[in-house]
């Protein structure tokens, strides 16, 4: 499961994180299983994030904390607002409850803190710079660039990205060599090293997910947010993906990931947050959270005659994501003015 570990090279994103998985889980076991529960060591704390489209409230999260160093799964039926919530806290969307720029408005306003830094009105790239890097449900591998170029784009502190320095190669050559070496290591870890000079567009769906994850790791994020990392991935690759996620945690990176169903989540996550109709309805360790009445109700609402751990749910989601991806790639309908689908 924890395959392809490259010894001695992993950079611990969080050096004061000494405990192992068992210790982490036992610490989490003391946390109350209520929506919005307080965690012993929150890396991210979110308050009053509301987002409505027209009259419909897509997200309404009063309070949420994410435990440092843990794998937290954000699950919920289709349309629960998971992706929108991701977009909001990563700066890709703005909460309706954001404090108006020019004053006024009624509180409570949306606020959230990541590693003690307030991220209330921060643009997406700054959120990433603070160490909270995300991936997308429909992979955003840059297909007309090589796998290596994709990786290099993920690195931070590149002097050559400044337009004037860029003209003088000696000024950025050294850093370029460093990040290239780092990219090579990560590609080996994710088994993409053979593909490094291929265009990312030639990769399979699963490989793109891996590339996106590896690319996000180029910046040594303290927390990585994966939006449906398993969607559209060939089942053979799913195990390896899950292994990589656990590996991330074991190297000290906090992981928050979105998933549709319990089955995928159960054995890798340390904590599960359940969303339904925009709200957080339950929280708890993976083996007990699904027994909450609120969770059962939420899932019965959408998959009424399916068992919660049933694999057909997975298949259906897979089909759905794939169809969506195909539609995206093929027709680019872009019926909405702002282009992208969630």
């Amino acid at each position, binding site marked *: 499961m924890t395959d392809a570990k490259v010894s001695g090279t992993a950079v611990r994103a969080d050096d004061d994180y000494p405990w192992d998985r068992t210790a982490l889980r036992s610490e989490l076991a003391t946390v109350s299983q209520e929506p919005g529960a307080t965690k012993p060591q929150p890396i991210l704390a979110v308050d009053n994030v509301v987002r409505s489209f027209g009259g419909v409230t897509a997200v309404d999260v009063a309070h949420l904390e994410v435990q440092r160093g843990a794998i937290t799964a954000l699950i919920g039926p289709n349309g629960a607002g998971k992706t929108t919530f991701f977009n909001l806290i*990563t700066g890709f969307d703005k909460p309706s409850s954001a404090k108006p720029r020019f004053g006024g408005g009624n509180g409570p306003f949306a606020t959230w803190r990541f590693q003690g830094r307030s991220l209330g009105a921060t643009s997406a790239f700054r959120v990433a710079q603070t160490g909270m890097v995300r991936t997308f449900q429909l992979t955003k591998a840059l297909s007309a660039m090589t796998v290596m170029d994709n990786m290099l784009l993920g690195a931070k502190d590149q002097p050559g990205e400044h337009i004037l320095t860029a003209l003088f190669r000696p000024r950025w050559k050294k850093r370029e060599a460093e990040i290239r070496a780092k990219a090579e290591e990560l590609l080996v870890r994710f088994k993409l090293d053979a593909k490094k000079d291929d265009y990312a567009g030639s990769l399979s769906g699963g490989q793109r997910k891996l590339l996106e994850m590896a690319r996000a790791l180029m910046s040594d994020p303290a927390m990585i947010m994966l939006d449906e990392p398993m969607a559209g991935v060939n089942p053979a690759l799913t195990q390896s993906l899950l292994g990589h996620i656990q590996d991330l945690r074991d190297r000290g990176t906090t992981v928050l990931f979105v998933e549709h169903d319990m089955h995928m989540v159960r054995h890798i996550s340390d904590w599960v947050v359940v969303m339904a109709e925009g709200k957080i309805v339950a929280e708890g360790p993976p083996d007990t959270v699904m027994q909450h009445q609120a969770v059962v109700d939420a899932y019965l609402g959408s998959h009424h005659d399916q068992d919660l751990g049933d694999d057909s749910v997975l298949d259906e989601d897979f089909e759905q994501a794939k169809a969506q991806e195909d539609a995206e790639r093929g027709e680019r309908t872009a019926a909405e003015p702002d282009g992208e689908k969630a």
Partner: protein
Amino acid sequence: MDFLATLFTDFGAQILSTVTAAFAIAAIGLNLHFGYTGLLNIGQAGFMLLGAYGFAITIRFGGPFWLGVLVAIVAAVIFALILGLPTLKLRGYYLAIVTIAAAEILRIVGGNQSLGPVTGGVAGIGNQVYSPAFTALSPFPQDGSFSLGPYTYPLTVGDSWYLRIVSWIVLALVAVLVLLLMRSPWGRTIRGIREDEDAVRSLGKNVYLYKMQALILGGVIGALGGMLFVLGTSVQPDSLGRSTTFLLYTIVLLGGAATVFGPVLGAVLYFMVIIGLQDVVGQFVPPEIMSQQQVPQFGYIVVGIGLMLLVIFRPQGILGNKKELSFGD
């Protein structure tokens, strides 16, 4: 045979000409916008016109040559900021609409008679007003001419070797600049933005800033092209309207978008086609079917249809790599 000899002589003359170099330069700027960054600027002719006005008007009011160049560049930077600030956070077509409208407004306002004392109105500014400031810097003798094969031009004055050499040197410098940039991490980020700006944003890059830099740089390059263009002709607002922008798109797409030398090749080929068309029509087509005056119109019809066909059937152009080219949506 006579016809072919004329045709090839005309080809050569056109390839050497300042106009070809000026359009190649403006096209390199547009390529930086459209080809590399994915910015749909449909007002590149506006940048050219602004460069031309900034340069010519400064000299008209007694400014020195280099101040004229500086004013042209600063004007292009300001224009890019005005266009980019409200639109670069939005989807591509907003920039498209704003750039085309702004460029047309520049043309209309520039041609407005009430601004006659400054811009010369529709008639524009003749190059006798600003050329002397340029020819004064020539390393060649002010008088005399030089022949190279069938091509005889004055050394310094008017449609001269001096102007040709300067134009091609500027073109070479601009091409090297773009080459260096695109091979750097800056260029990598720019290409990433063209493909999917959200992905690049999620990696902690200030996409807005990069797009603004590209818009400004490409616009300044366009202004340089505009300055060289009017050194060979004159500043006339109607000669740098949106048809010119569309022509630049055709040049970029013909040669190959997102390549450094594509715009140069595209410009050379485009002007060869137009010259060929002119020579052929003059020689073989009876005036009842197409008069000589209608050739430019016909040329634009060809450009328009050519642009459509290129985008549909060969978006990578001649030099481009299909795998590497994707238009950002």
